[in-house]
């Protein structure tokens, strides 16, 4: 239905445009494409629906004559990534915009699953299979492997469709009203983990049917030195599938104890939620070229879905809803932010700015005490659990001053204080002081240079060791985390950040620019967890106008991210108690290289050639090792490196057939190489036949080479 409407809309637009009665201009581009891939790898069409055969690439129709201006445009018609838009305006007074876009996300074309979906979110297995596995549990591996030979393939992909409308009205000088509305609908399937225990990781092609509706009304008043804006809005998220249930391949009847489990397990998918929001902003132009902006916003979010029972295993007493202390989630979060910025020209050579930001996350959710839980539906843990109410507040106070030393040479200083108060975390607060300086030189017409540096010193306060402890099922105290762990999002940290850009123009033909950004984080008080994170990036690009007929541009980029973290694992051995553990270190490194080239050649008056090349390569290494070397410590063995590499080439030749007609032939080449131990050879049945640890969808990522050839006509009118 949608495709038919699309074609009708497009044909109507083109017909109207071509009609002499209509004074529109624009273009339409269409053609035919063929492509091939040596392996059916989803990555080639991850976010793009590549046409095979005839396609309508784009169209634009504009009529700007008369009091009303109309623009109608579209791209990738009748493809999953199609986009359309309409804009209708009457001078500056009225304007209506509408657009629709589809965003595909293709994950895998090679997944297969033994489960069949009997109803949305409900996955079943043949009773005979469950009965056989329950009765002959030692043959589970063989039984499942044989059963999976006949498993059906399932495509894993989602489709997001976004429809937006905006009405803008300017009824009088200084006034503007905006009404915006959007609907985002997401459907499809994704791989999702559904565990039955530490050695029973199952993966299912979970269906998705979600919708988010947003609506906002904004009023702006702007007159002279005063600007005022107010906005109210609403966002409603609805999930048509909030429960996932799946048959347990090992059980036909509910049981507890060794080998126990439910016949059918279940988990809760994303709940419906709603946010009401508001924003008020004031802008004032003040004397001495000063500008004040103050904003306050509020977002009130609620989620109150009914709760499922503790467990679906009827052999456990807690399988009834009556075991729950409450029946609804009753979750509520209110976030209020305030921003004030004052900027001013202090003197003819000096400008400055002050900034305040405040943010308060008030988690008003009910604190619910549960008497225990059943993490995998096989057994009941009487460990009491109380829900946490994470939230807190943030404040930022900042000042910067820029001084023009001489024409084209500026220096600046920055000072900031960032303070965070935390609810229900292991730290009460943290406080960061930041100092920075920058220099910019734009003294010469052809040279510019920018250098900036910032040092941030963050201290975490009020560490509560009790946050790493919990009451266990026997009423005693157990340790959840090692006392030496410090979580990087809050921990004490020193951060050095450096950025620099150098640009030079060699006459009218050649310009080049190099940019460096670096950030180095050190967590000195962290014994376990992230100790260090360094991120360095250099990107350079240039443009060469070789002649009137030839233009080239290209660039190179390099990025290296290094992180070091430490952990400690318990080892099984006999011996002194202080050797029951061994520390380990991971020195992860990601190295990315990026090269691009673009060339245009007007070979003849009516012939233009284009060439595009992009290369990306990432190498990931892990640097795993045990921190101590002892006879009883098995040394660490590093993981194999992971590699992602891609070459993309696009060549085009465009021949002007007539004044308004162009014919383009295109050739595309895409080579994708991947070596990733986690993604290349994911087994469908993991573990061994006698000790199966999981059943997966087998959605591996595979290298491929693809070619495409297209013939495209562009008609302008």
């Amino acid at each position, binding site marked *: 239905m949608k495709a038919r409407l699309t074609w009708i809309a497009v044909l109507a637009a083109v017909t109207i445009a071509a009609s002499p009665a209509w004074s529109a201009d624009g273009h339409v581009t269409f053609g035919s494409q063929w492509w091939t891939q040596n392996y059916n790898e989803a990555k080639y069409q991850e*976010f793009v629906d590549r046409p095979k055969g005839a396609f309508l690439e784009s169209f*634009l129709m504009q009529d700007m004559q008369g009091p009303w201006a109309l*623009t109608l*445009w579209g791209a990738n018609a009748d493809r999953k990534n199609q986009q359309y838009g309409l*804009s209708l305006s009457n001078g500056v007074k009225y304007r209506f915009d509408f657009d629709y876009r589809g965003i595909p*996300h293709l994950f895998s074309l090679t997944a297969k699953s033994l489960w069949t979906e009997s109803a949305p979110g409900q996955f079943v297995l043949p009773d005979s299979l469950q009965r056989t596995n329950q009765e002959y549990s030692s043959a589970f591996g063989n039984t499942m492997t044989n059963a999976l030979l006949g498993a059906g393939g399932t495509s894993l992909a989602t489709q997001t469709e976004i429809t937006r409308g905006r009405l803008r009205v300017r009824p009088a000088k200084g006034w503007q009203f905006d009404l915006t509305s959007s609907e985002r609908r997401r459907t499809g399937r994704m791989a999702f*983990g*559904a*565990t039955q225990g*530490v050695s029973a*990781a199952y993966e299912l092609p979970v269906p998705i049917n*979600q919708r*988010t509706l947003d609506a906002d009304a*904004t009023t702006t008043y702007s007159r002279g030195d005063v600007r005022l804006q107010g906005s109210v809005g609403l966002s409603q998220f609805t999930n048509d599938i909030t429960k996932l249930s799946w048959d347990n391949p090992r059980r036909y009847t509910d049981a507890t104890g060794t080998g126990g489990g439910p016949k059918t397990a*279940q*988990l*809760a998918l*994303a709940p419906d*939620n709603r*946010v009401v929001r508001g924003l008020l*902003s004031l802008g004032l132009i003040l004397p001495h070229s000063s500008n004040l902006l103050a904003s306050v916003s509020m977002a009130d979010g609620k*989620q109150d879905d009914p*709760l*499922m029972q*503790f467990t679906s295993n009827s052999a456990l007493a807690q399988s009834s809803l009556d075991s729950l202390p409450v029946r609804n989630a009753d979750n*509520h979060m209110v976030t209020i*932010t305030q*921003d004030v*910025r004052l900027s001013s020209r202090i003197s003819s050579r000096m400008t400055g700015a002050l900034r305040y*930001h405040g943010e308060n996350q008030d988690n008003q959710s009910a604190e619910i005490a*549960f008497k225990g839980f059943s*993490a995998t539906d096989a057994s009941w843990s009487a460990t009491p659990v109380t829900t*946490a109410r*994470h939230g807190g507040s943030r404040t930022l106070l900042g000042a910067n001053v820029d001084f023009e030393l001489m024409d084209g040479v500026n220096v600046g200083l920055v000072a900031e204080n960032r303070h965070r108060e935390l609810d229900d975390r292991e730290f009460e607060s943290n406080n960061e002081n930041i100092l920075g300086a920058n220099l910019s030189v734009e003294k010469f017409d052809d040279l510019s240079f920018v250098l900036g540096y910032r040092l941030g010193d963050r201290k975490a306060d009020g560490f509560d060791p009790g946050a790493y402890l919990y009451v266990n099922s026997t009423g005693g105290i157990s340790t959840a985390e*090692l006392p030496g762990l410090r*979580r*990087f*999002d809050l921990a004490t940290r020193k951060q050095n950040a450096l950025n620099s*850009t150098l640009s030079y123009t060699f006459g009218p033909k050649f310009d080049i620019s190099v*940019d460096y950004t670096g950030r180095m984080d050190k967590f000195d008080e962290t014994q376990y*967890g992230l100790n260090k994170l360094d991120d360095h990036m250099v*990107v350079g690009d240039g443009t060469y106008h070789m002649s009137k007929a030839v233009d080239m541009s290209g660039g190179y*980029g390099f*990025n290296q991210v290094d992180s070091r973290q430490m952990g400690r*694992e*318990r080892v099984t051995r006999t011996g002194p108690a202080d050797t029951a553990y*061994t520390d*380990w270190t991971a020195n*992860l490194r990601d190295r990315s290289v*990026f090269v691009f080239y673009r060339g245009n050649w007007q070979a003849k008056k009516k012939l233009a050639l284009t060439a595009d090349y*992009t290369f990306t390569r990432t190498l990931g290494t892990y640097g795993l090792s*045990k921190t101590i070397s002892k006879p009883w410590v098995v040394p660490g063995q590093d993981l194999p490196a*992971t590699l*992602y590499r891609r070459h993309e080439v696009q060549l085009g030749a465009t021949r002007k057939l007539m004044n308004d007609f162009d014919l383009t032939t295109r050739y595309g080449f895409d080579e994708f190489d991947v070596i990733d131990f*986690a993604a290349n050879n*994911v*087994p469908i049945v*993991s*573990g061994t036949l006698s000790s199966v640890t999981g059943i*997966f969808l087998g959605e591996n990522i595979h290298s491929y080479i693809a070619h495409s050839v297209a013939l495209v006509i562009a008609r302008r009118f």
Partner: protein
Amino acid sequence: MKKYSKLSAEEANSACLNCHSGGDHFYWKSSGHSRKNVSCVSCHSVHNSKDPSHTKLLKTERTSDLCVTCHKSKHLSITKSAHMPLREGSMDCASCHNPHGSPADRMLRAATVNELCYSCHADKRGPFLFDHAPVRENCLNCHEAHGANNDKVLASKRPYLCQRCHTPPSGHPSTFYDNPDLASNRLFNRSCSNCHSQVHGSNHPSGRYFTR
């Protein structure tokens, strides 16, 4: 008649701001671009726009192509293997950032990072019965929004990402997963998330470990 290429940024912008000072342009005067003397004509061309709809009047076909001429580091980031669909044209820089300014850091289109992410990923908004603290704190604790070398645009490969924060004295969360564990269901595929799939938060009464 004015020759815009010879005017200062402030002078060039004053003509545009006569009409374009409301809606998305409200915060222009205090924006980072304004402070850096970026002018309207740096990005927009009234007479020769190249964007497909001709409604934004941009100098390039895609918004992202324009942004990366100055923000070069992001040019590399968006080409990494795990990315949001900017290169493919389904999103652009202006989907998340308002180049004309906003009250938030980095000119985000929402008051906080999380509120911005929830505008598309509302399924993560919750609040959940069992919230995962770093998720509530900031989505960027685990994700690199501009592009990453790990699936789901994660900042680091699992399980090491999770082990930055989880080191219990016993049990598998702090286990050293190295080469002999290549066949372990805690290392391949989604690693920890093979079982702990509800990592953004769980609304199930037994969801404290994000397995339900």
